[in-house]
């Protein structure tokens, strides 16, 4: 479990995070939901240590990350896997070498054969068993995300962070990537945090959802509760998504409730 307590961050006196407190539960897909520019990426960067929050603390399973000794930070960092928006694959390395890289760097005690087995296992898990020799420039956006996931889980990460895993992907590929993240989370009991502004992901994989608006947490709950929310900003956010608009249209025709309209058949329109 990751506990975020009262995180504040401003850039040049312009507050972006205004005291965010939330928890990300173990073995679940935790979604950070919100419109563009609400500070989701900044919060994620504070959590993984790429940015220093002005105030507040972050605890990984009881270990305090913020303002702690370098070795403890390092110990936590080695348990973190991250999938970046564009994949952030090292473009001088093949898919295989990219996946092997964290193993080489973080676990020097592993033998070459053990590393190879682990990489092959991870590539197979994300469905890329035949792409090992390809360079990042030769593969599609969806495949890059898959390699990114393989690289993140290769060192047996305890925490997985994904910044907009669906950005730049077509809807069908988006759903596949969402499913992959969801399956991996539940298979290995990983604490996963996914940034998204996509209602598709919410209804698909939202075990626990945190809604951010203008640097504040306005709501949290699960995917069944979100449709009955009373928070006006969140309501507006949900209703502005094309998925829900489409669902609502069906809704008016069939005269069911909104929650009924977001059942599986409605989503498949």
């Amino acid at each position, binding site marked *: 479990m990751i506990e975020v307590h009262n995180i504040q961050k401003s850039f040049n006196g312009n507050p972006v995070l205004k005291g965010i407190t939330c928890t990300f539960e173990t073995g679940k897909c935790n979604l950070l939901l919100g419109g563009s520019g609400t500070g989701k990426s900044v919060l994620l960067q504070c959590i993984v240590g*790429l940015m220093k929050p002005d105030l507040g603390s972050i605890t990984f399973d009881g270990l305090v990350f913020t303002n702690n000794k370098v070795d403890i930070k390092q110990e936590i960092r080695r348990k973190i896997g*991250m999938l970046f928006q564009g994949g952030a694959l090292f473009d001088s390395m093949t898919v295989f070498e990219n996946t092997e*890289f964290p193993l080489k760097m973080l676990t020097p005690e592993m033998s070459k054969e053990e590393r190879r087995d682990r990489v092959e296992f991870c590539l197979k898990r994300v469905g890329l068993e035949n792409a090992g020799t390809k360079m990042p420039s030769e593969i599609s956006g969806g495949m890059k995300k898959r390699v990114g996931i393989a690289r993140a889980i290769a060192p047996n990460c305890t925490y997985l962070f994904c910044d907009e895993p669906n950005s730049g992907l077509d809807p069908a590929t988006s759903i596949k990537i969402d499913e992959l993240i969801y399956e991996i989370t539940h298979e290995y009991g990983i604490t996963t945090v996914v940034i998204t502004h996509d209602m598709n992901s919410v209804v698909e994989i939202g075990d626990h959802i945190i809604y951010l608006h203008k640097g504040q947490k306005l709501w949290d709950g699960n995917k069944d509760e979100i449709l009955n929310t009373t928070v006006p900003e969140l309501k507006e956010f949900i209703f502005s998504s094309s998925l829900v608009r489409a669902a609502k249209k069906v809704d008016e025709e069939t005269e069911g409730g909104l929650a009924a309209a977001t059942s599986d058949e409605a989503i498949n329109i």
Partner: protein
Amino acid sequence: MVKTFGEFLIFMQSMLVRKERLAVLWQRMLDEAILIGIDSVFIVSIVSAFIGAVTCVQIAYNLINPLIPKSTIGFMVREMTILELAPTITSIVLAGKVGSSIAGGLGTMRITEQVDALEVMGINSASYLVLPKIVAAMLMFPLLVILAMVLSILGGYLAGTLSGAMSAQEYVEGIRTDFVPYNIVFALIKSVVFAFLVSAISSYKGYYTKGGALEVGAASTGAVTNSIIAILLADYVLAAVLL
């Protein structure tokens, strides 16, 4: 200006803390040495051979006084290339080739979040990416400068003898007149300093790129111009201090 210099120093210092295992850095250094050194042999060879040839032809053109022995041409080609042209021109050429590729490469890694990916893995990206580049440059620049010295003297020889400005014997005699070995040491010291300046300034420019593809291009350009200015300033200072 002062702030930039301070940031530059902090950047240099950040490379030296939390270093990776030596074996990893060594492997990285070898990779960079190939990129910086081997891949520059061609351009350095062409430039230095022609500079030697042109220097020789122009000196021969200016030395029409029959009282001055023809071997002076060889002597002057040697002095000019070893002391100044080989180390400085080679470094300026490398500032263009190596500097832009370092800044462009690091800038691209920065904007595509590859640098962040390293940091999240708990790797000191400055030390992992930049330190091997600087060390490799400081090893390879002197070697390239030695190559440039040899080739420019050879270029002068070919141009001088083929154009009939003087005989091979006169040129060789000139090359051997009043030779000061310290000049070679001085040139190599210069090349190490220039190597540090080019690689460190270009790394700094690339590493702190913000924005998109446009800024990567700007970082490359900035790296080359700043490296060249730094080379020329250092050239002057070193000449004043060490000669």
